């Protein structure tokens, strides 16, 4: 069964708003690269799948 620690997480989740960890440059890079690669690959793979595989 799924079990949850006795620790109350409400306080921790509330604290996160006041003690916000700003996005680091490496996180921004990860997000931007991931989305960019996703969009470019989307176009390439859609073309490839329709060009080389039967319907």
């Amino acid at each position: 069964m799924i079990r949850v620690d006795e620790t109350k997480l409400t306080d921790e989740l509330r604290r996160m708003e006041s003690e916000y960890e700003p996005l680091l440059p490496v996180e921004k890079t990860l997000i931007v690269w991931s989305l960019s690669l996703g969009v470019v690959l989307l176009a390439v793979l859609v073309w490839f799948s329709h060009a080389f595989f039967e319907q």
Partner: protein
Amino acid sequence: MMHPMPARLKLTEDWFAVVAGLSIFALALASMAGADLLGWAVTTSVWMDPAKALAPVSKAFAGIKGAGAFAATFFFLLALLSIGARLLGLEVRRFAGGFAAVFLISYLCWFLGSWARIAATPDKLKGFGLSWSLNLTNEAGYILALVAGLVVGNFFPGFAASWKEALRPEMYIKTAIVILGGYLGVTAAEQVGLATSVMFRGLCAIVEAYLIYWALVYFIARKYFKFSREWSVPLASGISICGVSAAIATGSAIKARPVVPVMVSSLVVIFAVIELLLLPFLAQSFLWHEPMVAGAWMGLAVKTDGAAVASGAITESLIVAKSLEMQGIRFQPGWILATTTTVKVFIDVFIAVWAFILAWIWARKIEPRDGENVSAAQIWQRFPKFILGYLATFAIVVAIGALAPAAVPKLKSAMGQANVFRGIFFVLTFFTIGVISNFKKLWAEGIGRLAAVYVLCLFGFIIWIGLLISWLFFHGVKPPVA
């Protein structure tokens, strides 16, 4: 009283699923050599007369009748899974007691779901002397099992607690997926060209899902909901990739405290239930003319292996029935489910890759610590092992089909026997997912904000981007006609 095994002798649930699935697969395969080792397994037909519902899968065992087949199946699974419980270090007697209850209720739901008023498809109504049915096929039993599980979990928590050793949806579904590999292998062996196409498109779809989904959810969780990195990574993985496994694997990869992915997993399980009840019916209404898009969509949108593959099974039943009703076309069963499963399996395979990438970034760039490396052993440890079982049964069956095409009918019959157990493991999964989805407990922990980001991302764009990606890669691809 039996004592739990020492830690060093314990098997993981993942590995046990491989062993159990391969054992059933091997027993079924023996029928090709004339040894009918699983012919006694119970099947349930769509029924109007309950006395005629149950029967052994092989005619050679007709003498034991439905009741004998049911008892044989129950005791076989009880023995197999009790061995597993022992190897997993569980208290075997408690497991056996819990499993008996779980099995009996689950199978009762399966039996009730096969009632012709619920399950009969339009082409079968005349045979049953009926003018209408709900047209849900016997897989309505899955939904009944889920609802029964939700009732037990939320209104009879005492029962749920007493069965806890047997409430193992991940183990049941992983075993089912290992068996499913062989069943889908037969399908692939019969239609190699289309199978290759489905595999390639499935791979494309999940590469896209990882790159787009994860980054978007992570950004929203961090930027707008102000979650810390420790919470955002499992949350993004749980919402965007493959629920429980991904949340836990990527959470471990960045060394989050265990409670974080567990909380996320609770949300994942609950929302998977909602998706499971909703999306197959949406797919039937709007995508019945694009069955493979619907199958891929279930794989991309519905989180957790169990709920996704089950959604694929329900979607297949609904769409096959609707297509027959609307166009008189009966699609060959197995293809929509194969698409869902293929997408889901690739997602599972890529969890290890994504966990590796995150572990590397966190170890190297975000929380660098001297001398810390992500070893190959850690990656292997995080790899979902049941995927190996799935790939093995799939590959063995495809290889047999390719090397000896004349043996395909026997192969199909053998995998039909194994598939009986796949169906049983599915229904066990549905029931146990329902039982562990304890809504009251989750809300008592005050994680409404986590739920808010989940709802926003899942229903705001995950489901719809998943639909778009599925459409782009699978539109126009049709299953063969039966």
